[in-house]
């Protein structure tokens, strides 16, 4: 409960900080929408040029892309603070966080929720639901499973971000690492099934980005077996646990440089 209250305070502070410059906030939100719109346009063009993509219809591919944006924006909304972790490490200011009687991950992972992504998230969520209902016509029960798998994806994303933080402690190179993660996730703008083997299996089972981004929409479309659903939840639990162990190991090598 204490951790939740601290996280709530960090989030309010972060929102207020962002909103001090409404114009820049607007520029960011508009830019992100432009990116989504242009890629949708590209997908549309592409699907006019080829009959189908990995057996998926035009509507299904668009739904995959919208789901990608939902998960991606949700992750950025929650874990934005990871992007500003490096200065804490190189300046030694992480000391000030480690000294506090709260779990340091609350601060470095969740302590900078991004209201710009929050706005985006709400709009994308509305678009996903509207598009899903009008184009895919699936039972309500499937939506429940879809959102459970989305939450599962957020946990996997949390694990990825914790890994980046751990590497950041050891190497001080957070900026490019998090961007490498972002580059990898951008592979998932289209379903993992489009990629050839062995990349497809690598992206599904080794770096579970396929589980994260492709499984929820696949479930909604009715293409995910129950074995893979169970596997995705197990994978997420294992991945989070390993990331937490990794983080605590990495913290031991923190040298408090420059402090």
């Amino acid at each position, binding site marked *: 409960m204490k951790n939740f209250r601290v996280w709530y305070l960090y989030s309010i502070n972060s929102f207020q900080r962002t909103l001090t410059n409404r114009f820049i906030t607007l*520029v960011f939100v508009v830019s992100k929408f432009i*990116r989504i719109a*242009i890629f949708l346009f*590209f997908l549309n063009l592409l699907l006019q*040029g*080829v009959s189908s993509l990995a057996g998926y219809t035009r509507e299904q591919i668009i739904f995959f892309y919208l789901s990608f944006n939902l998960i991606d924006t949700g992750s950025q909304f929650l874990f934005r603070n990871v992007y500003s972790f490096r200065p804490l490490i190189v300046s030694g200011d992480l000391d000030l966080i480690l000294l506090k009687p709260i779990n340091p991950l609350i601060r470095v992972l969740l302590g900078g929720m991004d209201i710009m992504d929050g706005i985006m998230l709400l709009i994308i969520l509305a678009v996903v639901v509207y598009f899903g209902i009008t184009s895919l016509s699936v039972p309500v029960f499937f939506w429940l499973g879809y959102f459970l798998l989305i939450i599962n994806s957020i946990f996997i994303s949390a694990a990825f971000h914790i890994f980046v933080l751990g590497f950041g402690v050891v190497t001080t190179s957070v*900026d490019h690492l998090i*961007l490498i993660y972002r580059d990898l996730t*951008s592979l998932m703008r289209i379903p993992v099934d489009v990629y*050839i083997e062995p990349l497809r299996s690598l992206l599904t089972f080794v770096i579970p980005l396929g589980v994260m981004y492709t499984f929820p929409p696949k479930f909604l479309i009715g293409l995910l077996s129950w074995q893979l659903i169970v596997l995705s939840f197990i994978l997420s639990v294992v991945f989070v646990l390993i990331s937490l162990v990794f983080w605590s190991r990495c913290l031991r090598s923190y040298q408090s440089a420059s402090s």
Partner: protein
Amino acid sequence: MRRYLAVFLIDWQNQFVYRLNFLLWRLRNILRLLMTFFLWKGIYQTGSAVFGFSQPQMFSYILLVLLVQSIILSAPSADNIGGEIGSGDLSNYLVKPISYLKYWFVRDLSSKLLNVICALIEIFLLWLIFRPELVLNFSVSSLIGFLLICLVSVPAYYFLSLLTRFVSFWNPENTWGLSFLIIIFIETLAGSIFPLDILPAWGKLAVQFTPFPYLIYYPAAIFLGKITGFYLLRILLQAFIWMLILFFFARLVWIKGLRVYGAEGK
């Protein structure tokens, strides 16, 4: 001239200080290339030609994009310009007998040289690993055209990035906003994910009136010999006009910015 040569050499050495950072940056470029490569490889499983592009033509384009990005888009952490204006560190440069804009341009060139060397090695290694069939039917005129458009687009991109960073004169705490918008346009409209030939005629015509296709798509298309003759001359002229426009605005905003600059933070 000797002063700028010294800046070039110092910056060249500086790039080897944070080696892991540099390696990760190059890794990102390779990953992006692989992403595009596998995306198109997957798409080509459904047909032999997409948008009139055969698979070898598309792979040649993708590899060229990596080279063009290294020549035109690679730059030192240009956020520093915004940061220096915001923190007041710009004053340190203004009192020195050196042009701040030329100083950063020389650093830009130093970064490009290293990135181009790395890109050439990476392209060779990727070609060795994947052995994709390539179509490189370029002529002497296309090679000259490619060099000319690079000569124009390198400063054009520099002026464009300066324009976004000069926002810091008026808004020192937010140096990233406009840059982000430009990055999005470069990502999508410059031709890094897909060649602009896939756009409908009106779309291709419209993007010509933006500076973005001159940064990736046109250099790559010229190198591949897709743009020749009078069309090549027209594109070169358009690229040159864009460079002049961006230079004019960058200089104008710089002068206006210096008038409001108060060296806050110093």
